Every structure is written in structure tokens, then in C-alpha cells.
């Protein structure tokens, strides 16, 4: 729209969609009858609508009824966001509880793996995490 006397684009759109205020329809149609630019605009809208209509409809692979009917438990797949949150929580817990060292004396049982297992002492962590956990630079 380069000419301010033309109807605004949303007015032409509404006319094309059959949604224009009835009090404006006659005036806009009268303008379009004499205005090549506005007729071209309406023709463009029509072409665009035909393109949109030609687009394939996505097919639902199976009914969702069996998953929504009352009394049936809904699909309880673990959603990715919860999986990520669970992993993050596990890592944080691991970091916080990692330094705790269990010995046979404390547990009262002989633990075969305790002789070979490497107990985390903070030395193998990144320097930043080490500073955070030990409070020493």
C-alpha cells in the first residue's frame, strides 16, 4: 500500500475473508472495482489461500481415546525434561554425598570392595569444584 487512499491491508484481508464490517463492504468493493492494485492484492490473498489449502493434513497415527478415557491410566512415559532434571539432581546429590567415607567399622560389616574401591577425596576434581568443596584455593 503506497497510496494512503487505498483501504488498509487488514481491511482487504477481512473483505476477502467475508469478515468485513457490513457498513464498510460497499465502499471497499466500490474502491476495488476501480483500483487495479487492490484487485491484485485480493488476487494475491486468494492465491495464498489456495496454497495453504493444498497443504497436506497431518494424519493422527492412532486414536488417543485409549489414553484419555476415564479410569485408564494415562501414558506415563518419562518426559525428557523430567529425565534431565532427574539426572541433574543425581549429579548434585553425588557431589554433595561423595566425600562421605563408609568404613567397615562404621557399618559393622566386612566389605570386600573397600580394599580396592577408590574413595573420593576431592583431589581428582576440577580445581573450581575442589575450592567449592574444601573452601581452600
Amino acid at each position, binding site marked *: 500500500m503506497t497510496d494512503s487512499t487505498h483501504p488498509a*491491508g*487488514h481491511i482487504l*484481508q*477481512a473483505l476477502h*475473508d467475508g*469478515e468485513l464490517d457490513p457498513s464498510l463492504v460497499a465502499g471497499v468493493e466500490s474502491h476495488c472495482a476501480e483500483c487495479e492494485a487492490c484487485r491484485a492484492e485480493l488476487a*494475491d*490473498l486468494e492465491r*495464498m*489461500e489456495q*496454497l*495453504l*489449502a*493444498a*497443504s*497436506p*493434513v*497431518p*494424519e*493422527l*497415527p492412532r*486414536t*488417543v*481415546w485409549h*489414553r*484419555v*478415557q*476415564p479410569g485408564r491410566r*494415562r*501414558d506415563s512415559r518419562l518426559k*525428557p*525434561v523430567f*529425565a*534431565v532434571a532427574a*539426572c*541433574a539432581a543425581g549429579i548434585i546429590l553425588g557431589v554433595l554425598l561423595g566425600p562421605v567415607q563408609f568404613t567397615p567399622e562404621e557399618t559393622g560389616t566386612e566389605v570386600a570392595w573397600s580394599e580396592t574401591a577408590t574413595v573420593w577425596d576431592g583431589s581428582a576434581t576440577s580445581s573450581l569444584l575442589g575450592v567449592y568443596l574444601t573452601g581452600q584455593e
Partner: protein
Amino acid sequence: MTDRTDDQLMTDYAGGDENALRILVERWERRVFAFLVRMLGSPEEAEDLCQDTFMNLIKAAGRYQPDGKFQSWLFRIAGNQARSRLRRRKILRWLPLSNEVDNTPTHEPDALDSLAGKEDRDLVQEAIARLPERQRQALLLKQYNDMSYQEISEAMDASVSSVQMLLHRAMTALRKDLASRRDR
């Protein structure tokens, strides 16, 4: 199927007729799914949210007013689901450990090269996917659900004049987008 209207089915379901709910789901699920696929670009997510939409319908059934606006009401639920999912995607983009599949259309100029030679309808779908959420929502409701401006305004909790502007901007953006791709 049945000659019962959506409102009658909702009333019957509220009265304990579970079969009425089944008819409603089977009557609307394909349209809800198609809308969600076009909003999200992901059939898998759309199927999940289609399920969630009807779960929410069940929860809210007691509050439904049978005033002939079932479609607007249903697509309001579906639209809220879709926009909530799109917001979550934006948040997840900042999570380094995220394994969420991001189906958000790319705006990378390099990605445009691969579009050369595609059919018009593919280009149209991609152009729709690049529209801002609300423009996309309004366009889909009008184009593929034959909803009036008034019905769309109810589904989107917006004024009719806002819907008019959203649709105009959506169509203008689509035309520019398609024109720019064909010129490449």
C-alpha cells in the same frame, strides 16, 4: 456416529455418559492433532499434547457452558498446550544437558539452501512454521478449522480486531517469506 451436537455430548458426559466423551474425542482428535502438528512441527509432541488436550477437557468438563462455542473452547485448550510447550522449548535451549529434540524452525540463512527445489506446499508449511506463535495460531484456526474471526478471538482470548491484525500480518509475512525464497 451420532447426530448429537458437541454441546449435547458435553452435557451428556457431565451426566455420566462416557460414550459421549468417546464420540467427542473421535470427532475432534484429528483436527486437534493437525493443529498441534502445525503449531509445533513435531508429530510426536503433537500426539502427546492431543492427549493432554482431551485430559484437560475432561478435567474442565464440569465448568463447560453449552453455549455453542465448543470448538473455540477446545482449541483454546489446545492452543494453550501448544504455546506452553513452545515456551518450554525456549527454556530448554539454555539447559546444557537437555536431550529435548528442538523442532523449532531454524532461522539460519544456511538452512535455506536446502529448500531449493522443494514443492510449494513444503515451502508453505515451512513459512507457516516461521510465523510468530500468535500469528501462526490465528492463521491455522482460520485456514484449517474454518473458524470465524469471532470464534478465533474466543479461542485466543483476544479481541476480534486483534485477530484481524494477526491474520493480516500472518498473510503478509507468508507472502514475503515465499517471495524471498522463490527469488533465491
